[in-house]
């Protein structure tokens, strides 16, 4: 049983709430996925239309923990201020910490990430840092007080899956007791299942569901995939081998020459 800052999730799927064709489809997809966490964000609110208030009433009905993000923040100051605002609005110490370092790849600025993580954990936040598979950065994040790590699978929104299997496997092996979430780059349920089969504790995705032709059906597929992947990991998969090995016993085979 994996605990994320003391909380057990009802499903290892963390699902984003953005980019859906409509709020109604988002809500239906979320329920179909059975996801255990909803990721949310903060944006400027107009006193006249109050769009955020309707969104919030939809998400609070899901009955799962929300994980606010600092998406779009490029500096430590921006990320920290956004986190402080998120804590007040959503009433949770959880923060998906993103400090973006590169506009095209949305690669995290890991130096800013470590600095922001330190400031936020000292201020009582429970930080979910969006990072790379770099082991030294992971170590620094843990030293900064993070108790969860969220390495990327591939660039945000790319749908490429797990780009660096060796790096992710090494990271998993290096920090066996740290809850780890594959965040970003997941395109297909098989990618999510693969992450779970490798022993990651959860996957976080958004675009793969929201931009599918049928988001509700895809949400369900992802829900099934993470369950299958987790069950497979728990069942201790066989070791692959180079040569064939017959599965049907040869003893007792009829002599027919």
């Amino acid at each position, binding site marked *: 049983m994996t605990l994320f800052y003391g909380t057990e999730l009802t499903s290892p799927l963390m699902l984003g*709430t953005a980019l859906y064709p409509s709020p109604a489809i988002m809500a239906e997809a979320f329920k179909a996925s059975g996801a255990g966490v909803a990721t949310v964000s903060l944006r400027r609110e107009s006193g006249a239309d109050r769009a955020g*208030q309707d969104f919030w009433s939809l998400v609070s009905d899901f009955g799962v923990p929300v994980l606010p993000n600092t998406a779009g923040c490029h500096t430590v100051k921006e990320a920290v201020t956004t986190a402080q605002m998120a804590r007040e609005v959503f009433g949770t110490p959880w923060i998906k910490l993103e400090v973006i370092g590169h506009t095209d790849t949305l690669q995290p600025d890991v130096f800013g990430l470590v600095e922001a993580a330190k400031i936020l954990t000292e201020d009582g936040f429970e930080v979910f840092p969006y990072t790379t598979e770099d082991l030294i950065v992971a170590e620094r994040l843990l030293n900064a007080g993070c108790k969860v790590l969220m390495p990327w699978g591939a660039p945000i929104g790319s749908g490429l899956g797990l780009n660096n299997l060796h790096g992710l496997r090494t990271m998993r092996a290096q920090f066996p007791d740290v809850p780890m979430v594959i965040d970003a780059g997941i395109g297909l349920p098989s990618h999510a299942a693969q992450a779970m089969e490798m022993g990651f504790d959860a996957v976080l995705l958004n675009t793969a569901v929201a931009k599918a032709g049928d988001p509700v059906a895809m949400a369900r597929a992802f829900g099934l995939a993470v369950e299958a992947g987790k069950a497979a990991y728990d069942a201790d998969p066989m070791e692959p081998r180079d040569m064939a090995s017959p599965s049907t016993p040869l003893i007792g085979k009829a002599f027919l020459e």
Partner: protein
Amino acid sequence: MKIILNGEARDVAQANLAVALEELGYSTAKIATALNGNFVPASARASTPLSDGDLLEVVAPMQGG
């Protein structure tokens, strides 16, 4: 006085943040505020004065990944 609310110039009569938010239509809304780039907790709004030219950001829950 003139302040910049979420990037747009607005006139407000009140010189404290809590009352200005009411005036700007945010009463009872689930929001958070930052003044000139610094977070202002809800509990500190009534004791936070506004000055001409201040940059006020007001944010609310929104879709996110």
